[in-house]
């Protein structure tokens, strides 16, 4: 009779153990879900904020950092949850510790499971456990069904994300001022290239970035572009979602600056990106654009085709150095301060829509040394007999620059600008 009572008591205790375990594990599961949710929304908020404010390179680095931190914290959270999770075999020990039962419950669960042996002190152990049932009720050991702190963290994460999304459009900076290096009267070298000003000018052939297509710097740039294309797409998408479809710079904002052979290069690109200048949509991008931009895009495509046709036509004309004037020792076509009428070579075709840069082929030879009209056509004079060529081994010989890589963002502007100057 006493044994039946004891076994009934043990079953009641086991039921309570299961209840406590269920409640604790559910609590823990919620905690993990809330914390991971908070982590996800926090990371998303950080990414959105960075996409709107950081440069492409900075955003790529930030994505890596945010991903690493998020992954690390998630691992810690999951590991902590695994540690807190109560498996069936450990439930009695956990309750024992939390309830201050000094091993009573754990001992009973291990010894009171049955068996032929009937230890003399076991009934007392059962009785002591029954007397302490109230000490470790499920609602006492796990007072709250919902982990409030974790829930608050999740809510805070969601609120932060919402705040960033809501305030995102306000972070859009004004379009930068575009300065053209072809206009006399201004000293472009003395002008500070900042986030709100972009200098556009023919590339200096001495600049490494101005190397011919197929050189190492271009290949490296392409590889880097491929690697970061996913991150760049993410950034573009975030910007597009929050700031809407990109708009092109109005021609009225293009200011004029004195002639300068050097372009701002990558610094200008970053400055433009940081300043919020949106790239003109590529032909493929235009195809997928919204209705609002269709007419505008069509106009740009028409302009581009017109420029390319003109360039092809010009290429068929005699080139610099080929014409009779140059052969006679006179100034070549395009020499002096007049634009070369054969400026355009064949366009780079589909590259404009698929790369971060596009190459506008130039039919004329642009030389590093801006000398007189005859310098471009005349072959370099042989070194003097007493000259020591080994003193300047790194000096580069003058070379023609048939192509000029330009950031994709400025494709429309540059095409339009050069088309205007070249056909004038």
């Amino acid at each position, binding site marked *: 009779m006493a044994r039946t009572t004891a076994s009934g008591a043990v079953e009641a205790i086991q039921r309570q153990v299961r209840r406590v375990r269920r409640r604790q594990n559910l609590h823990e599961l919620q905690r993990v879900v809330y914390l991971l949710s908070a982590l996800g929304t926090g990371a998303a908020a950080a990414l959105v904020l960075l996409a709107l404010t950081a440069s492409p390179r900075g955003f790529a680095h930030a994505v890596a950092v945010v991903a690493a931190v998020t992954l690390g914290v998630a691992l810690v959270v999951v590991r902590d949850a695994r540690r807190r999770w109560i498996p069936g075999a*450990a439930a009695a020990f956990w309750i024992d510790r939390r309830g201050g039962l*000094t091993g009573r419950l*754990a*001992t009973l669960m*291990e010894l009171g499971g049955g068996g032929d042996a009937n230890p003399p*002190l*076991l009934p007392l*152990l059962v009785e002591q456990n029954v007397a302490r049932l109230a000490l470790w009720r499920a609602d006492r050991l796990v007072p709250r069904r919902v982990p409030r702190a974790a829930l608050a963290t999740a809510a805070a994460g969601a609120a932060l994300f919402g705040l960033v999304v809501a305030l995102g459009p306000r972070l859009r900076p004004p379009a930068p001022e575009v300065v053209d290096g072809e206009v006399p009267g201004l000293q472009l070298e003395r002008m500070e290239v900042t986030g709100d000003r972009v200098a556009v000018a023919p590339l200096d052939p001495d600049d490494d970035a101005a190397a011919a297509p197929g050189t190492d710097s271009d290949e490296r740039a392409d590889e880097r572009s491929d690697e970061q294309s996913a991150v760049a797409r993410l950034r573009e998408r975030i910007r597009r979602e929050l700031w809407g479809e990109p708009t092109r710079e109005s021609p009225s904002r293009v200011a004029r600056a004195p002639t300068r052979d050097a372009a701002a290069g990558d610094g200008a690109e970053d400055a433009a990106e940081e300043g919020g200048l949106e790239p003109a949509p590529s032909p493929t991008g235009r195809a997928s654009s919204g209705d609002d931009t269709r007419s505008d895009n069509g106009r740009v495509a028409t302009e581009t085709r017109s420029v390319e046709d003109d360039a092809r036509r010009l290429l068929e004309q005699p080139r610099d150095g080929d014409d009779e004037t140059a052969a006679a020792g006179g100034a070549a076509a395009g020499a002096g301060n007049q634009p070369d009428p054969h400026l355009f070579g064949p366009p780079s075709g589909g590259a404009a829509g698929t790369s971060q840069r596009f190459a506008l082929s130039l039919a004329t030879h642009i030389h590093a040394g801006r000398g007189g009209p005859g310098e471009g056509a005349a072959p370099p004079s042989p070194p003097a007999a007493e000259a020591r060529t080994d003193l300047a081994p790194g000096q580069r010989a003058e070379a023609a620059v048939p192509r000029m890589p330009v950031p994709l963002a400025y494709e429309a502007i540059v095409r339009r600008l050069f088309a205007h100057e070249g056909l004038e």
Partner: protein
Amino acid sequence: MNAAVAADAIRDFQDTFAAVRREIAKVVVGHERAIEIILTAFFAGGHVLIEGVPGIGKTLIVRSLAEALNLSFSRVQFTVDLMPADITGTRIISEGADGRREFVFVPGPVFAHVLLADEINRATPKTQSALLEAMAEQQVTVAGKTYPLAPPFFVLATLNPIEMEGTYQLPEAQLDRFLFKVLLDYPTEPELERILATTTGAELSTVTPVLPPETAASRVEQLKHLVRQVLVAPHIERYVAALVRLTATEETASRYVTYGSSPRGGQALILGAKVLALLDGRPHVAAEDVERVAPAALRHRLVLSFAAGAAGTDAEQIVARVLASARRLRP
């Protein structure tokens, strides 16, 4: 045994233990922890090795314990010329009433409930070993005849740590037979004042027996039996086994300990823990009980290496490290 009877038995044990403690405390000032460990070993059925400088109450504690429990007590002062027969007893030729002479066994001092082996390390190993059989099997064999010792049988041996000249190191096998080793410290200043006051006055404190003389031995055996019935869950056994293993494999132990604890160390841990569980009113052993008795149960079972001596590390520190490591294994 139903729950109520078990609860009464545990309460009786607690009362008896507390009463004996109280009686001993009348004449022994301080040493509360040492007395608790000695009483724990007594009710666990083990023997105790006490280490302490002369004059701090070792003999007084043992004598008071015997008096409080109303058990027979004998004391042997171990010296270098002490022979085994001086402890176990010997056969002598005795002349009967009819004039016939025959060998008669005269029991030695080991035939007592409580035996104090004072300065046990002064006797030769041969004499020390005479106690082995008595301590382990509660019997002695003299001239081929075995004589059982009346239970309860409790040996308290003392060691003098400062006079090492002319002493014999206790063999490891004999050390292992002591359930606990107790270190008696110097009394504190207030305790010393109380000692002076209680031992130099006109009226000396005396111990009042807690148990009646005719039933004392059986009552003690009854209480010892109750100790054996205390529940030990498998997770506690696993914990004790891990603890014992760690005395050889733990990082510090593996560096400074040549030989770790024997399985007897595990037995001592569980038996001592059972007594502490009863004192706490529990019918089962908890891990905390094991940890409380661990220093006393393990410190004399570790054979330290030369490196330990060179590094100034003693068994106490190693046991503390082992306990810290073992706590991580607690379920």
